[in-house]
């Protein structure tokens, strides 16, 4: 009976993911079926809605990867932006098309890396038509995986010494590591590889996946792609958390002494969790570069880590669905719904609405965060997942009968 129940939840999960993806594709392509005039302007492809959806998908992956480490293994790490940076740069460096490399790296007299991943695939699949599409897909896929691998490799290297630390000390060490990375990637001497303090651009982004015929888009996939990658990655993380490894991570979070006495190798499992988290943060970083259309080190500051930490806290430490919901909520507020707070509004009678000026949005945001921290200390979801909420309600109903 137990097996059946978890099977049912799994199928529900897959169904939900598939429905979500279908909805995203449908939303994105409404303009193809309906005349632009008939659509509310929020649904046009240029609308903020799609920016929010894209960034939300990217951030939810990073937030879930952070939750895996902070919420499920109980390791308080603040290195997420650093791993994102590694992923973003790995992806960007490996996928800038060979023919535009010289113009991207013009300050350093060309790039040290002479190939691009999709170029390699194109060399035997052809760069035009379906062959080109397949090589683009394979190149980006490989780029994302390598982005994760590089981040995981660095996590392994710094994890060996750093994971001996606990709580705040671990947070400080990982934060420092992220800051060091940011400085190193802007270093002039690495220019031919990282383009110094300049951004790397012209690599394939989300809009590269829009299907075009004769210069006209016939199928928008630019929101579908980040959703697909994020959903696949989050599914893998969820499966991991529900496996015996996930149980071991939770055991370490709850009680290290007992976990060790039960034969869980603390050092190995902490390192494993750290590397997996870094892997998905790296993939998330690569996605973020695709979202932003560029990779530049100065974006991946500790502020970005705090943003993600905030999302995790608001969503509930130890809840995957909480992290996802909180991400979209947070991104929508900061990018879209609360934007008006940054603009001065003068009413017709000359009355200037007080407080509204550039930066006020962040003030409101800080207040919201304080309210959450003070009154919803466990976040939106606590450590529950979406299906748990329904399950509880059902149980209540049956006991009421």
């Amino acid at each position, binding site marked *: 009976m137990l097996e059946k129940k978890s099977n049912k939840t799994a199928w529900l999960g897959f169904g939900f993911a598939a429905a979500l993806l279908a909805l995203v594709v449908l939303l994105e392509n409404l303009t193809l079926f309906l005349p632009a005039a008939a659509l509310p302007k929020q649904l046009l492809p240029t609308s903020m809605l799609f920016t929010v959806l894209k960034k939300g998908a990217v951030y939810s992956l990073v937030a879930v990867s952070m939750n895996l480490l902070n919420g499920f293994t109980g390791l308080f790490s603040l290195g997420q932006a650093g791993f994102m940076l590694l992923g973003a740069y790995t992806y960007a460096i490996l996928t800038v098309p060979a023919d535009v490399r010289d113009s991207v790296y013009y300050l350093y007299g060309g790039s040290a890396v002479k190939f691009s991943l999709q170029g390699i695939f194109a060399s035997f699949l052809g760069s035009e038509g379906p062959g080109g599409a397949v090589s683009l897909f394979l190149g980006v896929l490989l780029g994302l995986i390598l982005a994760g691998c590089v981040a995981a490799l660095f996590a392994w290297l710094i994890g060996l010494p750093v994971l001996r630390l606990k709580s705040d000390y671990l947070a400080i060490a990982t934060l420092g590591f992220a800051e060091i990375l940011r400085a190193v990637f802007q270093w002039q001497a690495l220019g031919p590889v990282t383009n110094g303090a300049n951004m790397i651009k012209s690599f394939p982004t989300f809009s590269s996946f829009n299907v075009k015929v004769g210069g006209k888009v016939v199928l928008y996939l630019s929101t579908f792609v980040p959703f697909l990658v994020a959903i696949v990655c989050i599914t893998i993380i969820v499966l991991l958390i529900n496996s015996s490894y996930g149980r071991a991570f939770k055991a370490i979070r709850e009680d290290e002494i007992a976990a060790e006495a039960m*034969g869980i190798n603390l050092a190995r499992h902490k390192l494993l969790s750290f590397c997996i988290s870094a892997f998905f943060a790296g993939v998330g970083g690569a996605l973020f570069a695709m979202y932003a259309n560029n990779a530049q080190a100065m974006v991946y500051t500790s502020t970005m880590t705090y943003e993600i930490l905030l999302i995790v806290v608001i969503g509930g430490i130890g809840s995957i669905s909480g992290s996802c919901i909180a991400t979209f909520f947070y991104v929508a507020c900061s990018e879209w719904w609360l934007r008006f707070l940054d603009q001065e509004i003068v009413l017709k009678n000359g009355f200037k609405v007080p407080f509204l000026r550039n930066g006020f949005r962040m003030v409101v945001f800080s207040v919201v965060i304080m309210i959450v921290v003070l009154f919803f200390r466990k976040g939106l979801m606590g450590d529950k997942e979406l299906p748990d909420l329904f399950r509880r309600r059902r149980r209540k109903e049956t006991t009421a009968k």
Partner: protein
Amino acid sequence: MLKIDRLKVRYGGIEAVKGISFQVPERQIVTLIGANGAGKSTTLRTIAGLIKPAEGHIYLQEEDITGLTPDRIVSKGITLVPEGRHVFPDLTVLENLKIGAYLRKDDLSEDLKWVYDLFPRLKERSWQAAGTLSGGEQQMLAVGRALMSRPKIIMMDEPSLGLAPLVVKGIFEIIKEIHAQGVTVLLIEQNANMALHTADLGYVLETGKITLSGSGRELLANEAVKKAYLGS
């Protein structure tokens, strides 16, 4: 089965265990009794691999297991029920039990049934978070969790700690039951009376040294033990 040979353990410069030797014969209940700070817990934690010994050796069935990591020792068949229960509070009872069997990759259903038969209470509460159980139930869970690794020797660190006398009695009944099913038990206790009544073999530990040994009955009759630990 388990042989401790001149074991010394140091915390920094302080010697907590000063070269003790004792044996745990197969299928017996062996108890170490002693006052606070005698080195009982340190001894168990060293056998479990949580602390590295300074000198001496630990043999399990003639095999030297000194200094192995805790996970290797658990897979060799020695499991520790830590002092103060240490269940995983936010995980369900079932998850707690599954973590006990973490190093085993085979089918668990038989062992789950075994543990649930020993502790019917746990079966009723298998979906409950372990932190919501009563003290006695948590102790049952800690013991059940240790049994899930299918140990040859189960070591219990003060299983009666902080429990009501009636519950303590129940715990000792279960220790006997586990023993009857073929598991060797190494028990340390403050409650010397209970422990010696249950044990086949007992050792008295005083400030890091073994001062007396004998069968449970002999120690119960010993004047020095009576005076120091039984309060009569």
